[in-house]
């Protein structure tokens, strides 16, 4: 089994001191700047999980969880940092820390490059610096960004990711200057949490319509903690509107759902499950391909239902096998 979404905790600022340029250490010591926001989730909430070390991750993900390989990410929110040099320095130090403290210590663990996505050129530099390091298989991109991800502003960044051979992992969260819903700032975390599916839908539309996959035909994208039940109806709508309006975006030469099925994979946790499990089976069917879903535990975040258990009970054994490991193995080109 391959677990496509586990988390390593954010580094504490002092973990990064040995890896940061000296003047930034002095800056953090002598000013109120204490680095990036710690989490996209409210502190101490169940979804925020607990802060475990490598031993706890090994036990939960590999020993008890039964994964042979796990793809991790660190959600240290360098995208929340307005000082561009601090953002780039924190991203670089975080990646060095991930390599040293996690990826080099555990050969079954894969990692995600943290990059200051609000500064596409700096992000591209950091990705190039880390791309060939052992363990890194993807770039972490928070779902909420300052501009839609298909914007021309990001095209050079997508080209860098494509060239690097890494997957682009678009993950729940993000701390840009923009509100987390399409109509402004909500009052409660429940609203932000629920609306994240809309953020993913917007990013998917943007990337396809603005031609990211035409500009970067080898780009691979994975959605993590996006949910997937919203996807079929969204693709139906996109295909329908493409027929009416494709003249404006003639580089989109196939129905948008084709691009999705070719370039995007989706982690299964958290599962926005309908009350009747039979309906869930219909949604999986409506995705239109058995290759799309990847098993994900979201360790150490705790969700109300175990997505894997529910799906594997419901789906045919052959599809369960694909979701457990074959889809990830093939998409991440993991061999074996």
């Amino acid at each position, binding site marked *: 089994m391959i677990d496509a979404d586990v988390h390593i905790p954010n580094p504490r600022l002092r973990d990064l001191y040995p890896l940061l340029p000296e003047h930034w250490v002095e800056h953090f010591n002598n000013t109120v700047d204490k680095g990036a926001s710690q989490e996209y989730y409210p502190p101490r909430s169940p979804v925020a999980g607990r802060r475990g070390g490598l031993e706890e991750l090994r036990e939960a993900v590999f020993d008890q969880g039964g994964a042979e390989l796990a793809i991790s990410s660190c959600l240290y929110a360098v995208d929340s940092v307005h000082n561009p040099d601090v953002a780039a320095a924190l991203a670089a130090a975080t990646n060095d820390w991930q390599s040293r403290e996690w990826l080099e210590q555990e050969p079954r663990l894969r990692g995600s490059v943290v990059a200051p996505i609000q500064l596409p050129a700096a992000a591209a530099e950091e990705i190039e610096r880390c791309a060939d390091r052992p363990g890194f298989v993807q770039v972490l991109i928070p779902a909420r960004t300052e501009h839609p991800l298909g914007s*021309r502003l990001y*095209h050079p960044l997508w080209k860098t990711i494509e060239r690097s051979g890494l997957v682009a992992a678009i993950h729940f969260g993000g701390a840009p200057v923009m509100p987390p819903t399409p109509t402004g700032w909500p009052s409660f975390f429940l609203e932000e949490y629920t609306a994240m599916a809309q953020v993913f839908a917007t990013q998917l539309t943007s990337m396809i319509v603005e*031609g990211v996959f*035409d500009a970067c035909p080898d780009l691979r994208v994975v959605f993590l903690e996006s949910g997937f039940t919203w996807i079929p109806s969204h693709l139906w709508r996109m295909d329908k509107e493409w*027929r009416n309006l*494709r*003249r404006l975006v*003639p*580089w989109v030469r196939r129905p948008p759902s084709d691009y999705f099925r070719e370039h995007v994979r989706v982690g299964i946790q958290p599962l926005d499950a309908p009350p009747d499990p039979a309906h869930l089976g219909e949604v999986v069917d409506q995705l239109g391909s058995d290759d799309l879903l990847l098993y994900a535990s979201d360790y150490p975040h705790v969700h109300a239902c175990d997505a894997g258990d529910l799906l594997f009970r419901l789906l045919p054994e052959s599809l369960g096998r694909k979701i457990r490991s074959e889809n990830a193995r093939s998409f991440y080109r993991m061999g074996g």
Partner: protein
Amino acid sequence: MKYVVAEASEIESGGRKIVSVAGRSIGVFNLDGEFFALRNRCPHQGGKLCEGKLWGVIRSERPGDFEYRPSREILCCPWHGWEFHVRTGQSWCAPERLRVRRYEVETVAGEEIAEAAEVTAAPIEDPDAPSPGMVKGPYTAETYPVSREGEYLVVEIPG
């Protein structure tokens, strides 16, 4: 069955004429001197396709690239904007399964029509015809008095 639908000079280049032939509404288009006829009914939901705007052909290899040919051969349905190639009736949005009915158009001298056996100069009501105005014969000049001197557009409706 062949129907005379217009004088050749009547539809200018880039223009069209919508005619009623054998109970069907059909658009006859002049693309640079070549004539094409399409059913005036979009295969999507039945919109009056042939009343839609004509557009040039636009192609693109990557975002921001536009390779434009101002041929005005692409017909967009006024209802939902679905695109069809006037030359072939081929849909551009779901090419594997959508195509609008096209008909052969030929330009025929008036003399040839006049010499055909069952030429009529005006529609004849036939009680067996599937719709009023449909008549038998190799050529039918629906509302067209045919003179030996002119050239006429003739649409062939199979069956």
